[in-house]
Structures are given as structure tokens and as C-alpha cells.
């Protein structure tokens, strides 16, 4: 009897030791990552929500809690609605829609199709060119845009327009067509994302499928229509959603190239938040409330992306259960 009790006791001890090791291991390996993720993703979301109900401003002091910020954004209650907001939202829709449809999906697809139809070396060259904007630091990219389109005589655009086309005076694209400027500027960068993903998808199509189509009588355009495009449906959906999310929240390049102007012509939602919070007025709480309206769609779209990626197939069951 005593022997059994003793053995049970040691077994229980061994089990507790193993449990201890399990917890230690988890803390050691996962701990730091959890802290970082908590600090930079979970906590900010919580902070944002909390702050949005305060009056945190330039003085960095909280004196009261209220729904004033939301009232101001959505236009209810006794706070005066922010009159600029509807315009900002309209511009955001125009910007996101324009860039997404023209560049980030369509032109990216065209780039993938055309560069893969060329011999290997040339295709790689053109893809590398279209990756230059994405690879450049944002400040440098903005410098290049500014120099190319500013309103002086010496910008690239004006040298071409005045030199080759004989215009009388310089044009300032940032004044004339600011929305197109930011669409193109962000579009050049966005197109490369689709280009990379779709190129890899096209390369994944078995070669014999192309051979069979050619023997069946298909020309290049028919091959694109009947062989390539059907295989690109999933990648395109993925790109569409990812880029919508990315564009909705982008503001770095707009800030650097047009600053949101002229006269708020290119002030999209994300810039609006930035200006409200980090300009002289420092309306952090209001900015937080506005940001909330980006956080929610952001999380939703990210979850949809996850769904599409079909996560379950990527997990492999662990085979060592000893701790």
C-alpha cells in the first residue's frame, strides 16, 4: 500500500514539475511577443476608445468624460457638427475608389500580364522599375514627385509642356488636379503589390495548359481571357480587399506631396485625423474618435482577409508533447 501511495506521490510531483516547465516555457517563448502585441495593438485600441470619450487636448490633461467627440463627428446631440467631415468622407471615397480601380488592381494586373509575356530578362527589368516607388523611402519619393510636378518653370512636367508642347506658361498640377496627383502618386506604389502577387500566380499556372490552348487554336488574347484570368480570381479578390484597407488608412504620401491641400482638396480621412490631432490645436480626443471609425472597418476587413486565406490548412499539429 505504502509503495503505491509513494509512487502516486512522485507521479503527482513529476506532473506538477512538468506543468511548471510548461508555464515557464510559455512565458519564455511567447511572453515577449505577447507583450509587444498587447502594447502596440491591443492597448492602443483600448486607449483610443477610452480617449475618444474624453476631452484630451493640447494640454494633455483629461478633465471630463462625454460623448462630445462622437456628437461632433456624427452630428447629433448639442455639439455642433464638424462641417468639414462630409467633404472629407466624399474625398476619401473618391481617392480610394480611384486609386484602387485604376492602379492597384487594374494596372497591377496589366503590368503582371505584360511583363510575363516578355522574355524573362525584360520582364524582370520592367517589374524592377515599377518596384522603385515602393522601395524608395517615402520622403525621397515625395521629393521626386514635387520636383516633377511643381508649378515652377523647372519642373519636369512644365519643361515638357512648355518645351515640347509649346504652352505659354507653367501649369501647377497640384493646384489644378490635386486629386489626380495623389491618385497617381499612390497608384504607382500600389500597382506593384498586385503586380508581384499576380505575376507569381501567373507563373504558377502549369505550362502545358498554355501549350494545349495554343494547339487548340487560341491566340494571346484568348489565352489571357480563357486560361489566365480564371486562375487569377482568388488573388484579385485578396488584393482588392487588402488594398482597400491599405488605401483607406494611407496618408503618408499625401501629407508629403500635397499636405492635404490646396484648401483641403486632398484632405482624406486619415489626413484629417492627423491634422486635427497633431497640428497646433492638438485635438487628440477628437482624433481618437475619428480614428475609431477607421479601426472598426480595419479589423473587419483584416478578418475577412484571414478568412479568405484559409488559415486552417497552414497549421501543422505538433508532434512532441513532452515539455
Amino acid at each position, binding site marked *: 500500500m505504502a509503495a503505491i501511495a509513494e509512487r502516486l506521490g512522485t507521479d503527482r510531483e513529476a506532473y506538477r514539475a512538468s506543468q511548471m516547465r510548461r508555464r515557464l516555457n510559455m512565458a519564455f517563448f511567447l511572453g515577449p511577443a505577447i507583450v*509587444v502585441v498587447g502594447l502596440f495593438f491591443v*492597448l*492602443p485600441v483600448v486607449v483610443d476608445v477610452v480617449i475618444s470619450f474624453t476631452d484630451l487636448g493640447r494640454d494633455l490633461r483629461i478633465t471630463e468624460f462625454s460623448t462630445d467627440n462622437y456628437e461632433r463627428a456624427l452630428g447629433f446631440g448639442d455639439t455642433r457638427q464638424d462641417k468639414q467631415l462630409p467633404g472629407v468622407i466624399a474625398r476619401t471615397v473618391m481617392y480610394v475608389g480611384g486609386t484602387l480601380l485604376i492602379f492597384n488592381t487594374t494596372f497591377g494586373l496589366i503590368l503582371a500580364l505584360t511583363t510575363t509575356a516578355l522574355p524573362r530578362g525584360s520582364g524582370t527589368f520592367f517589374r524592377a522599375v515599377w518596384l*522603385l*516607388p515602393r522601395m524608395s523611402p517615402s520622403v525621397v519619393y515625395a521629393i521626386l514627385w514635387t*520636383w516633377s510636378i511643381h508649378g515652377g518653370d523647372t519642373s519636369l512636367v512644365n519643361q515638357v509642356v512648355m518645351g515640347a508642347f509649346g504652352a505659354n506658361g507653367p501649369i501647377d498640377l497640384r493646384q489644378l488636379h490635386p486629386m489626380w496627383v495623389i491618385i497617381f502618386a499612390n497608384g504607382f506604389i500600389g500597382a506593384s503589390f498586385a503586380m508581384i502577387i499576380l505575376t507569381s500566380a501567373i507563373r504558377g499556372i502549369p505550362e502545358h495548359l498554355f501549350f494545349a490552348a495554343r494547339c487548340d487554336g487560341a491566340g*494571346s488574347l484568348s489565352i489571357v481571357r480563357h486560361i489566365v484570368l480564371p486562375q487569377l480570381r482568388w488573388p484579385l479578390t485578396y488584393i482588392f480587399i487588402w488594398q482597400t484597407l491599405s488605401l483607406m488608412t494611407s496618408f503618408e504620401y499625401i501629407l*508629403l506631396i500635397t499636405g492635404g491641400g490646396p484648401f483641403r482638396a486632398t484632405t482624406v480621412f486619415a489626413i484629417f485625423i492627423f491634422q486635427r490631432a497633431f497640428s497646433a490645436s492638438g485635438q487628440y480626443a477628437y482624433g481618437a474618435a475619428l480614428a475609431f471609425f477607421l479601426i472598426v472597418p*480595419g479589423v473587419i476587413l483584416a478578418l475577412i482577409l484571414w478568412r479568405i486565406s484559409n488559415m486552417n490548412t497552414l497549421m501543422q499539429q505538433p508532434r*512532441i508533447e513532452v515539455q
Partner: protein
Amino acid sequence: MVAEATAVLNQPTQQAHWDRLAAKARFRRSARLTFLYSFLIVTSLPIIVPYFWLVTLAFSARVSTVDTSVLWPSIFVLVPAVMLTLAWSMLARSRRQALIGAAIVWAVAVLILAVIVGPNLNLNNFRFLYNAAFGAENTNIVAAKDRPGFSTTAFPWVWTAFANSLIIAGGATVIVIVVASLAAYYISRFQYPFRQSSLAAMLVLHAFPITVLLIPIFLIIWKLGLLNTLFGVILVIVGIELPLAVFIMKGFFDAVPWEIEMSALSDGATRRQAFFKVVLPQVVNGMIAVSVFVFIRGWEEFVFVLVLSTKQAKWTMSLYTFYILEDSTMGVDYGLLSAVALFYIIPSFVLYAFAQKYLMQMTVGGVKG
């Protein structure tokens, strides 16, 4: 049917029929290539020209206005050279002929360029690299007006900014590698609750645009007392890049065979010892790939650096370039600015080219990428 029809015809007519088809094939091929090259060249010009201009500006004489004395002549020589080379390679009968033709075209082009453009080239603009007082005559930093407490002294030494960028990028890289490898190993190898959702969480976090959280992160960093420090920026970059790093590292850990670990364990090692001695060396490629990504991000980061410094405390290359651009007196020295921009941009390109090699070998989350 075609077959029967041609059988009835005599041989010369048959051959003529096939020759017509061969001619059609040649025509189709030329038309396709011409269209593709023209389209891509035309649409790529708006990207190629400004970057090329940046290079020519950096190496040419300093003038008070932006200078295109090198740009347009270069373009007028280079573009025909490229077109000639392309056309020649399409028409040439053999590889050797194509190469000889290309060599001739380019030799002539370089000669012409040397004559027309050569005298304008110099390294004057790069004096910011060795002459700290280059900005001495320009003490007006315009953007400073908007920044409370911003100093208005002469422009800082570029190497300070360079060093700071290096510290930020390098520091973030080291921390990310350590944290991501530990976490990815655990997710890949251990059983624990919520394991399934960990990987999903990483992907969702990576897709989530962190700039939306600019305000709360600013407040958190402020509360932690890390505003105006390099470490604050380092931490933020770690936060930004960690999810993707974990995702990538997990893929590499998945590819390490279980047998290696099992034999280490049966040799008496604890799981932790097995990790350090046996598994980690296998995923070095993954660590290199992740290092490159994080370093690039740290090197290029602008928004968070801008937001997290309320005083002119720490310069980075991104801020440095930005303020030279904003400066109304020095900002018009396009040559200088180009040289700075070039100096800033080249490490990025080098790193991207380096990363390309490792991208090829990457497996994404357990499934071959």
C-alpha cells in the same frame, strides 16, 4: 478540311500556303513584342525619368534652380540607344551578332555622353558627407516654426542622422529577430490553448494598418516617457513588424524536421536546449530574411519618427531629408538635396536586392510560397 484541301493542291501551292502561315506567325510575333515594349516603355517613363534625374542632379553642377542640363541630353542619347539595341536584337540572326551590335551602339552612346554631358559632372554636391559646415551659411530652417522648442541652429552633421537611423533600424532588427524567433518556435512546436488562432491573429495584425493607431500610440509612448528617444521609435517599429516576422519565422520552423529535435531530446537535452543548439541554426535563412525587412522599415520610417519627436532631439535620415526639402534656402539647392536623397536611398535598394535572393527561398507559413 484544310488537310484535304491542301492534299488536292500541288506541292508549290501547298508550300506557298504554309509560307503564308509562317509569315503570319512572324508578323504576329513582331506586333506583339512591339506593342508590349512600347506600352511598357511609355508607362514606365514617368518613373524612370525622375529617378534618373535624381542621379544626374546629384552628380552635376550646383545651380540655384533645378538643373536639367544633364538630364535631357542624356535622355536624348540613351533612349535611342536602348531602342536601337532592342530593335537590333530582334532583327539579328544570331546571339553573337546581337551582342556585337549592342556593344557598338553603347560605345557610341557613352562617347557622345562623355562629350556633351561630361564637363558638367562633379562630386561637389556630396560635400555634405565630409563638410559639417556646409549649412553654415543657411541658418533658416523653415519647418522649425511649426515645431515648438525646435532649434534654429545650423543644420546637423549628416552622419548623426545616419547613425541614428542605423541605431533605430539595427535595434529594431535585433529585438524583432529575438522575439519573433522565440514566439514562432513556440507556435510551431508546442501545444497550447488558442494555438490555432495565434497564427490567424498574426496575419490579421499584419494586415491591420497601424497608422490608424497613431494617436493612441503617441499617447502611450508619451506616458512611458519615451518621447524624443530613439528607443521609443525602435519599440514602435518592433510592434509594426513583429506579426509578419512571426509569420515568416513560423514557416521556417515548420520546415525543420521533427527528427532533429527528437534526437536532441533523446540525447538528454531539454526543449530549451534543443531550441538553441539544434533548431535555431536551421532557420538562419529565415532570420536573415526577417532582418532585411525590419531593417528596411526602420531605415525608411518617417511618420512615427516625425510624430514621436516634439523637439529637435533626434535626427534620422528621413527627417534630415525631409527638413532639407522644407528649408526655403537650402531646399532650393537641388544638387545638394539630390545627393542627400541618393545617399539615403542607396542602402534601401541594396537591401532590397539582397532580400530578393532570400525571398526566393521563403516558405510562407508552412506552405511553399
